[in-house]
């Protein structure tokens, strides 16, 4: 009995010294909003947080990360092989950093990069990651949605290093206006053995705010009939509201807009202040991506559409008339 108390005390003492490593993703030297939310989640764990930035543009991103309040320091790995965040390169680097510096937690945004990277790192560390958390209950206990957000599971990890990806829409973004903390360069000592080559990328250029972090979203579905109507009705409304444009799977599959604008279980998860769903019926998979929005508006001509079950304000009307009228009256 005595011995178990003694060992418990030792254990809790050693826990108190341990740290969280937050992986920060940047695009063109700019920290992504999802990474800023992940840092807030990292701080919620309650241990000191070290951020790590990778890539040849890392210096610029690291300088801005270093000003996030509450970080203890920032690591930067500037080698060119990290440019496109290939998991084959970044995972071995993180493994080395985690093992040489004794981190107990690794946090990453649940972005395309984070989702590709974290499970590969988990394999190298032999741990079971926790995906897409929406709440930190304790340093080892997290809440995450399952079944397209139809259930919330509270899970407790028993792993020696706890890997967590963070749903950006569930946490606010960290501010970058504190005093700069030290930035330290790191590099991997071992070859990664990577055989994957980056060939090209084709990113959608848009004037609109980024969908994942926008405070307002205007989304269209099958009811918009074609790309011309989609653009003609939604763009002016989004412009007026300063909103990002999103879409249902039906709209994306029909070619109304790019895949990257899909909102739902397998697309982007958003939780803006205002979500306007136009011509979207509200399938389970779509609701999974937007039902945590603060105010939901639905415009649909079908009064039975399931979207009306989650909408705060519903208008049963022909969208071809209602949307231009709404745009004019805003």
């Amino acid at each position: 009995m005595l011995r178990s108390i003694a060992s418990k005390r030792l254990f809790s003492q050693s826990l108190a010294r341990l740290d969280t490593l937050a992986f920060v993703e940047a695009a063109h030297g700019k920290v992504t909003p999802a990474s800023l939310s992940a840092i807030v989640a990292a701080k919620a764990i309650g241990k000191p947080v070290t951020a790590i930035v990778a890539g040849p543009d890392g210096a610029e991103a690291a300088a801005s990360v270093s000003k996030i309040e509450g970080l203890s320091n920032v690591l930067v790995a500037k080698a060119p092989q990290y440019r496109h965040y290939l998991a084959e390169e970044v995972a071995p680097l993180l493994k080395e950093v985690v093992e040489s510096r004794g981190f107990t937690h690794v946090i990453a945004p649940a972005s395309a990069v984070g989702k590709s990277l974290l499970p590969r790192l988990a394999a190298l560390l032999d741990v079971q990651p926790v995906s897409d958390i929406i709440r930190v209950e304790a340093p080892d206990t997290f809440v995450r949605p399952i079944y397209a957000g139809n259930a919330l599971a509270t899970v407790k990890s028993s792993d020696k290093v706890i890997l967590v990806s963070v749903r950006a829409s569930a946490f606010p973004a960290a501010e970058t206006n504190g005093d700069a903390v030290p930035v330290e360069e790191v590099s991997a000592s071992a070859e990664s053995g990577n055989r994957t080559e980056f060939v090209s990328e084709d990113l959608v250029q848009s004037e609109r705010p980024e969908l994942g972090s926008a405070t307002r979203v205007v989304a269209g579905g099958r009811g918009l009939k074609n790309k011309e109507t989609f653009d003609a009705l939604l763009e002016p409304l989004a412009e007026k509201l300063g909103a990002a444009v999103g879409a249902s799977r039906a709209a994306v599959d029909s070619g109304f807009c790019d895949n990257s604008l899909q909102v739902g279980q397998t697309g982007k998860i958003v939780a803006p202040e205002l979500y306007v769903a136009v011509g979207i019926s509200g399938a389970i998979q779509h609701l999974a991506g937007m039902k945590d929005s603060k105010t939901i508006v639905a415009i649909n001509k079908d009064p039975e559409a399931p979207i009306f079950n989650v909408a705060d304000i519903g208008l049963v009307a022909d969208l071809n008339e209602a949307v231009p009228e709404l745009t004019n009256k805003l």
Partner: protein
Amino acid sequence: MSSKLKILVPVKRVIDFAIKPRINKAGTGVETKGVKFSINPFCDIALEESLKIREANKGLVEKIHAVSIGPTKSQDILRTALAKGADTTTLVDVGDAEVEPLTVAKMLQKVVEREGSNLVILGKQSIDDDANQTGQILAGLLNWPQATNASKVEIKGDKISVTREVDGGADTLQADLPMIITTDLRLNEPRYASLPNIMKAKKKPLEKLKASDLGIEVVNRLETLKVEEPPARSAGVKVDSVDELVSKLKEAKAI
């Protein structure tokens, strides 16, 4: 491509995508009794892609092997995979145990070794636990290249080129064998199995194993403390005109 493809397609049996899951009374999971189960949609796409690769590249694919890790009933989806065109299958029967992605990946690693697979095509996530991990963990265990969220797969000489759906658009990666690909929704449109093929599938090979046959113990690292309903949204209002909509928006301080 100098070496022939031996494709492994892991498939998972999940609650049908069209069904709204209900939490069980004990608050420990989702009610599964009397609920319709199907192949995970992303796994179906992975299987379809392997069939398409075989059809588009004559003589290149030596074998398509489907594997499922789950309860005895998972053999139903393996029969469907055989009816659609998989050559052989393995069921790793784990009973009613929940198996975490790390353990699934370790089992798949053993199956890769048994089958001599050099290309594994998986769904990007299962629609029940929404983890989006197994393919990446397997790639990490094997130290193979990984291309996640594939929307296009092309064989180019000795290389496989994969276009991926990423935040903000798409990118293209390439690697030679062996490699791991996970599929996104837009990769293809899965076919239906025809009745004659369903009949023929009954005679195709379905190997049955236990976790212990692979030398892997099912141990979970995560303990599910509870499963609960997400907070319900309070009832909304229906408005009759755009004017009313605008005034409600102002009332809600949304604009």
